[in-house]
């Protein structure tokens, strides 16, 4: 081959906007537009207190999106995260009310609840992962099916009625408490972000998940256990959703079968907007955190601007589709070599 022709082909064009778009995706542009638009619509939006508020509210979506990112990077997606949250909420609340009659220690009662929620999520994640990896069911059908099964079970167990009577310390700690002056949910989210960042960038599991999503056959020929890696991605996603479920249960101080209903859509939107590729193999923890923050910020901005919650659904769906269109453009640019 001639080196001159090859070099000519790969010379990067010096367009900073394009370069930024290719590096991080559509998020910085969306974020910028949202900030400008909402500041114009209400002067209460761009205040320190409101942004702190957004940060606190976004904890739950940040957590779920981190899990969703694992599955997206592995080349699939998880529509059942909302169901995992609902099941966790119901299972932990039911077991706490049961444990209240067995143990005296509040600590033991809460621990039982959290453990039960975690176990349920573990099962959900295992079913998803084994179905996708070993039985080769498409992630779409697998997680959609599990989502229906889980939602049905959660409603069946509660009859659709919230389970109240949880230990007061549970809500006071995980819903409204503070550790070292930081709200507990925020504290937990920060720990999760750091752990996830370390896992994706510094451990072989992270490398394996990127490799499986990038090219599963090449990963197989690089001595990677692709099936185990896929199962782990789904299990971890479910477990993080369970953690979110516990935090949300503490926040509403009851076990509810309809918690997390919009989480699947919102978490996928957060990830895609943050540049996680729907084809797998590409995605960064820090961007996903920002992506989730962006979604919650848009919702907050619209609330302040008194946009009806129905119209908010319209906008969220449109944003998701737009983000995917931009993702396709970006992927083509990457492959063509910009």
């Amino acid at each position, binding site marked *: *081959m001639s080196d001159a022709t*090859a070099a000519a082909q*790969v010379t990067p064009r010096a367009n900073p906007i394009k370069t930024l778009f290719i590096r991080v995706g559509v998020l910085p542009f969306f974020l910028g537009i949202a900030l400008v638009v909402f500041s114009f619509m209400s002067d209460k939006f761009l205040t320190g207190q409101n942004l702190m508020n957004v940060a606190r509210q976004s904890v739950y979506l940040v957590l779920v999106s981190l899990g969703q990112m694992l599955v997206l990077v592995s080349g699939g997606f998880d529509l059942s995260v909302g169901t995992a949250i609902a099941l966790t909420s119901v299972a932990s609340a039911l077991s706490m009310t049961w444990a209240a009659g067995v143990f005296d220690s509040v600590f033991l009662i809460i621990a039982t609840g959290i453990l039960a929620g975690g176990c349920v999520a573990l099962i959900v994640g295992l079913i998803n992962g084994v179905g996708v990896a070993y039985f080769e069911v498409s992630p779409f059908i697998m997680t959609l099916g599990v989502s229906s099964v889980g939602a049905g079970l959660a409603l069946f167990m509660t009859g659709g009625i919230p389970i109240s009577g949880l230990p007061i310390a549970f809500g006071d700690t995980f819903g409204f408490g503070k550790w070292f002056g930081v709200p507990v949910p925020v504290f937990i989210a920060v720990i999760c972000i750091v752990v996830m960042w370390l896992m994706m960038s*510094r*451990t*072989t599991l992270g490398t394996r998940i990127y490799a499986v999503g*990038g090219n599963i056959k090449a990963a197989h020929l690089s001595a990677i*256990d692709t099936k185990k890696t896929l199962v782990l991605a789904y299990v971890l996603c479910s477990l993080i959703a369970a953690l979110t479920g516990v935090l949300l249960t503490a926040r509403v101080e009851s076990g509810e079968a309809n918690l997390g209903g919009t989480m699947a859509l919102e978490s996928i939107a957060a990830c895609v907007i943050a540049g996680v590729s729907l084809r797998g193999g590409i995605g960064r923890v820090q961007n996903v955190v920002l992506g989730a923050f962006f979604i919650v910020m848009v919702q907050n901005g619209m609330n302040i601007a008194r946009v009806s919650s129905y119209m908010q659904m319209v906008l969220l769906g449109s944003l998701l589709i737009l983000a995917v269109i931009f993702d396709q453009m970006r992927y083509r640019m990457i*492959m063509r*070599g910009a």
Partner: protein
Amino acid sequence: MTLPLLTTHNLTKTYPGVRALDGVDFDLMAGEVHVLFGENGAGKSTLISMLAGANTPSEGKIYLDHHEVAFDSVARAKAHGVYTVFQEFSLIPTLTVAENMFLGQEPRMGILIDHADMRRRAQEIFDELGFPISPTAQVSTLSRAQQQMLEISKAFHGDLKVLILDEPTASLTEREVDHLFHFIDRQKAKGVGIIYISHRMQEFKRIADRITVLRDGAKIGTVEMAGTDEAALVEMMTGRQIADIYPTIATTPGDVVLEVADLATLGIAPSSLRLRRGEVLGVAGLVGCGKSRFFRAMMGLGPRRSGTVHLNGHDITGLPTREIIRAGLYYLSPDRKHEGLDLAKTSDENLALNVVTSGAPVKRGWIDWRNVRDTVAGIATRVELPEDYRARRVSQLSGGNQQKVLFGKAFGQEADVYIFDEPTVGVDMGTRAALYLKIKALAEAGKAVIVISSDLPEAINLSHRILVFANGHVSAELPRAEASEDTVLNYFFTESEPVQ
């Protein structure tokens, strides 16, 4: 003398870094069978893909009936009466035979498809060809040979001027081949020009009028079949200057490192093999003879029916692929795009994957990225990947540089036996020479190397010993000294029963 039906002038196709077809002038007369002959990668497929409308030329012109034509799609070529039967089938398995035959040009009554007429016309064509296929059968239920027959049959309706057949007899029996040739004769009589690609020289004698030989994308010459013998053709096909790109690899065979006993897989009869350290084993055979499948079964990448595999005396039979790789058997895939590389990642990221999975730079569960970077830099130097290309996404590199990255992945971990499956497919001469030196270095450092190649000179000239596959059998095992291209080619065409 009559004027040609179809002509090409200076037809050229370039891909980044590769000149797949280099200024070919070709002509086809009406009522002629013109054979295209050459090794894999000589440019035959590239040439017909442009005549068929599946590919557009980078340079050069195509004339049909003395008018310049530009085929930008297969449909456009068909509309001009140029019909191609590709090696890969374009059948829709969920539809019936008749529906496939008339796809896009269904006979109609008003707005409704006339199924009865469609079946009747399909049956007529099959009767004429002597192909035993039912028009109402679903395509997914047909055997491979029947699907091949259906592909050929699709050509025989409508206004046919030029028929291009790419290895049409690859999966046909003798009887079916007779029927096909009979039909080709009748098309000739009607004035259809036929371009025929095949490796089987017995077939040329029966049907060819002229033969054009291609090599490395260029036309070597066109000869009349009458008065040309096989030896002359083989010489035209393979006669390149080979001395300068193939290194001499010292032979100092050590202990036996790999021992395969009676390994059988789908379509491959039980075969055995022993390999010593320091040895390079060449594996030759036509595309589809099973040479690759045999070694993939050994790696756990395909079903294993029987047999055992021992590496360094340890039984690795039936282990998962990743454990076979860890045990010290490395397999380099022939398909770098689908099985080898993550195209959306950079060269360095691709190289780093195998370094990380080897476990060497992982301390207490944490990856030491500095260590990985140093190792990757060493590998990039070792495979002579230009510094500039290390941070580029692999999708933007030429085939040659992509192949260097793929080779580099093999050096990310220690192995005792390296299996290189088509190591230089789609790679330019300069890179080939560089990659051959890597193989030499491995062998001389006491590793055992297996080179599976459909490129005969490559399989012969790199090796100390040649294994030839034909029809799913090992048809010969020859020491280098006895393996001339002619001898080996003879074993390619050994007639034997295909293995089920």
